[in-house]
């Protein structure tokens, strides 16, 4: 890893992680939503850095373009008075949370360092979209089709639950 490569990586990683930390400390839920936006953009940058161009652009389109807008829109519609997030946090859970988090962090660091990973992607940067397209239409044809049923259930189920109140009224 050359110096500039390393610099780029750590910049992108910081863009992903620091806003994530800021989400935890922001007192206003709208601020938290915007920090999430920045964090997701950082992750998209990391995907691009790793040569996963399709994944990176999908991340931008779906998460930043779609889901983030929905979250902010949802907040606008439902957010009548300011909710202070610090009120929701429970102090008594602090110690168990730190212990659990510590154990998970240790385990993850151990796994990341000790595992012999098997890299499958090539070193060269190549556009990936065409390969993904071929795979989706060949080996992964069935998951592709089943995903459409998952989406159908999500759609119908969402409307079904949301309209339940009307039915009862």
């Amino acid at each position, binding site marked *: 890893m050359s110096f500039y490569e390393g610099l780029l990586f750590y910049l992108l990683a910081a863009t992903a992680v620091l806003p994530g930390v800021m989400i935890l400390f922001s007192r206003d839920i709208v601020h938290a939503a915007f920090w999430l936006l920045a964090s997701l953009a950082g992750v998209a940058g990391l995907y691009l850095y790793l040569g996963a161009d399709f994944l990176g652009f999908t991340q931008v389109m779906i998460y930043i373009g779609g889901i983030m807008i929905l979250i902010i829109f949802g907040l606008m519609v439902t957010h009548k008075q300011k909710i202070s997030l610090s009120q929701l946090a429970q102090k008594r859970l602090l110690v168990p949370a730190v212990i659990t988090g510590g154990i998970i962090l240790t*385990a993850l660091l*151990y*796994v*990341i360092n*000790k*595992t*012999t*990973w*098997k*890299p*499958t992607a090539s070193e060269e940067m190549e556009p990936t979209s*065409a*390969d993904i*397209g*071929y*795979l989706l*239409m*060949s*080996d*992964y*044809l*069935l*998951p592709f089709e*089943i*995903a459409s*049923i*998952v989406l*159908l*259930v*999500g759609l*119908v*189920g969402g409307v*079904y*639950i949301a309209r*339940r*109140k009307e*039915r*009862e009224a």
Partner: protein
Amino acid sequence: MLAATKQLDTKAFAEFVSGVGDSVAGFWPEIVLGITLCAVLLYDLVLSRERSKNTAYMAFGGTLLSLALVFMLPSEPRSLFSGMLALDSFSTFFKAVILIGTLVTVALTQLDKENIGARLGEYYGILLAAVLGMMLMASSTNMIMIYLAVELASLSSYVIVAHRRQSRIGSEASLKYAIYGSVASALMLYGISLLFGMTGSLSVMGLADLGIRMATDVGFGIAVGLVLAGLAYKMAAFPMHFWVPDVYQGAPTAVTAFLSVASKTAAFAILLRFMASLDPGSATGIKMADGGLFLDWTSILAVAAAVTMTLGNLAALFQTNIKRMLGYSSIAHAGYILMGVAALEVSDYAGFKAVAFYLLVYLFTNLGAFAVVIVVSNQVKSEEIEAYKGLGTRMWLPALLLTIFLFSLIGMPPTAGFTGKFLLFRAAIDKGLYWLAIMGGINTAVSVYYYMRILKFMYLEDSAEKTPYPAPCLLGKVLTVGLALPVLLLFFLGAAAGWTKNLSLLG
């Protein structure tokens, strides 16, 4: 795999198309289910809002056709859709169990007066989607496919859990189910991504060799553990069992019955397939960096089994609501079944048969118990155990049948529950897990208390009112008696019938 070239390789393409055609031949049950699902949703949307009973007939018919097609599947084990699914007697057996459970669930929904008329079109559509997900769970051999199947089953379940007239309790159940479920599926997905990073393959069957190659990696063990945690959620086993009581109580009783049998069966099917690839019989497990064995899979599963059954049974002792009690009892039963998984021996399929047979028995027993709960609550308008006082004289038939189902849940002869438990205990003892068998014995003794308490209420305690309730409707009678028969017959035929004897996995 088709390569990405500018020009389409026509020969490879023709081969691929004929491969898909071959796969479809072994995929008809799922296709029928998918078509029925869409038909039910469209019928409800376009044609009729009012006649919701027709959607029940459609769902029942589609499931029945799918079940018939399952029995007609070619018996030759093979792989479908480029290694996504396995077509083997193992998956066929579990698909049949899930579909029988679905047929009963559709009938139970019609029996459950609380729900009739409340927009059943969407309900049946989404129920069938859950069934489709569970059938895929029973046959998936690729981890992407496993994840999608689990997600399809879970998402659909969250929605149908919320289907209840009293919306608050249903919404609470659905929300709890969804939150725990998303944590569980996140854990599982993380485990899958770690496994992919280590092995470069998503095939479950590939884990067998890789398990040995990665024997020195503690990371491999942690990754598998994460996947198992995601499955434990669907099985209602420790440590992912917290959602069970609230969801079982809050969901419509028919949905509770469905989740307690179908969801559990599908999850155990994946677990068996997954563990068979890791081969717990040979000394594999979480290993330390120096290669020394830290924890082997058999011990991990055995401990999970012991903790699950103990937690479930102890909590069940203090319940006053019968659905909540059956919820804790369902946790306990996940523990008993895990005992069979811990005793897994790939060479002679030892644990497999016990687990498969027990799941079949549990299907009829638990559906029967919930059917009686529905029949009783239609008359008594209560799901509290107190309300069962004096039921022995006021509703003699449901009380008698509930006795049979409870005897089977305890594992007393002459019910199939005895045969099932006997096979599970024998599998554990054959494997040398004596302490686990003893734990199972103690737990069974504990469970006698809370099952018998219901019998005591029904037969030994009198209620102020003595007049008998009107007899249950025809559907209620047919269902409860129809479920009690296999519970009794499987005791006599169980060992001999040997449906579960010939199960084999695509290896």
